């Protein structure tokens, strides 16, 4: 599902954020990406949803060579990927329902379908009774659930979560990860969670990739060892 071959990303400033990285993540996998600040985690995921282009090497996501996608086609490519952020990034002037429906509206989904899918997704994340609330009326955990609902409502093949629990307390964090696990099981979505939260990685054990200095230091699926996790 996600495949990086000898990928290097050098920013214009000369910073080498990702250095000759090779990863292979299969369909339906649940993977943690951890590492210290500035190690290249963010660049790594930005390469996946084409916010950044690789300087060299190939990035393949959902069967498409990401760096070969034309600028004009990027929006269509992104419909295959759901992204969740630490700061939720909901549309503040839209209700919960509208926020989730927005993903489907841009892809010209018929209205009846939109209503059905949004209801089902809101049920999945446990927010069916908050459909008409505005984001600022919700707690952090609830907002993150809306963000997740928005990311998964069009059944993307890949869900990328960038520090999804960074702004949440431990209990809520556990709930959010539990929710992601459920999505992984129910929809067989490939899920990538970037996190700093050691507690979570230890509690919900999954394949864990440690990035340091733009390289993959260890990968538990390859029998590696992750500092401070085991």
């Amino acid at each position, binding site marked *: 599902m996600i495949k990086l071959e000898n990928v290097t990303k050098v920013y214009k400033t000369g910073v080498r954020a990702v250095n000759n990285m090779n990863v292979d993540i299969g369909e339906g996998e649940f993977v943690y990406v951890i590492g210290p600040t500035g190690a290249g985690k963010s660049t790594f995921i930005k390469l996946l*949803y*084409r916010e950044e282009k690789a300087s060299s090497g190939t990035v393949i996501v959902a069967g498409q060579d990401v760096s070969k996608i034309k*600028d*004009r086609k*990027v*929006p*269509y*490519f*992104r*419909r295959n990927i759901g*992204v969740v952020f630490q700061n939720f*990034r*909901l*549309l*503040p*002037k839209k209700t919960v329902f509208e926020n989730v429906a*927005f*993903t489907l*509206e*841009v*892809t*010209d989904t018929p209205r009846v379908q939109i209503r059905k899918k949004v209801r089902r997704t809101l049920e999945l994340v446990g927010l069916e009774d908050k459909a008409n609330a505005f984001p600022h009326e919700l707690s952090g955990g609830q907002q993150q659930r809306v963000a997740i609902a*928005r*990311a998964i409502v*069009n059944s993307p093949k890949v869900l990328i979560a960038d520090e999804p629990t960074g702004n949440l307390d431990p209990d809520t964090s556990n709930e959010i990860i539990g929710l992601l696990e459920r999505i992984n099981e129910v929809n067989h979505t490939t899920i990538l969670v970037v996190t700093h939260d050691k507690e979570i990685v230890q509690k919900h054990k999954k394949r864990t990739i440690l990035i340091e200095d733009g390289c993959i230091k260890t990968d538990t699926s390859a029998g590696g060892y992750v500092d401070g996790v085991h």
Partner: protein
Amino acid sequence: MEFISCIKNFPKHCKTAFQNIWRNGVMSASSIFAVTITLLLIAVIGVIAINVQDMTYSIEDSLTIYVKMDREISDKDAQKILPDIEKIEGVKKATFSSKEDELDKMIEMQDEDGKKLFETYRENNPLGAAYVVEVEDAKEIDAVADKISALEHVNEATSGGASTSSLVNSLETIRNGGAVFVVGLTIVALFMIANTIKITITSRQTEISIMRMVGASNWYIRLPYMLEGVFIGLLGSIVPILVVYFGYNWIYSGATDFLPAMVSMREPFPFIWQCSGIMIALGCGVGLIGSFVSVRKFLKF
């Protein structure tokens, strides 16, 4: 494909645009207010400038050359030089006035006693025939007058001399100054509107980045913003149009009473509709282009 989807979603985009205006209440209100103020400014100055221009033109049009023919020649002979006058470059129209007409005009200007006195000249008219010559360009009035005086049997061709040319020059200055002022003001005003819209959109940068994140195509993002700009321009032009409509009618009906016919104001209709049309076009056009340019900045990869 993208284009078809835009057309298909047009009602939805309109709805979104209205929703955005409503939900960003304060921002929208300030944008609309800015549009209103600037359009009002343009309208008032523009209407004044256009009327002043009209007036200066009608004053210029009323400037004529008075050509006195020699007294000795008969009306018939005097009429023969009409083609010669008309041949001169810059002459728009030459009207013949016979000896008799000239005397009538003179008698007309006298009081009772004078009238009686001049009536006695009927039998033996001492006046010569004359021409009233209109010129195409008031600036050339002196040159044309000189050429006419050079013709045979012409006694005198008067254009009012230096005072006329200085009047023509000052009218010209007023017109040009007014035009430059209006154009300058319009440009400034348009920048103001575009800038306000830019601020409105910049404040929604996150919104745009989210739209892009969930896979909205560039046109899908752009269109509601552009429509929003158009609606803001439209809403902003309501008050200026009302002001021009009622204000101009009011001033016009008041002014016609004391303004001489030569410097009358332009007829209110269709002038008001033309002004309104220009204001709507300006408001909407600037809204459209302003938001297009502002959004474009955030749509680059």
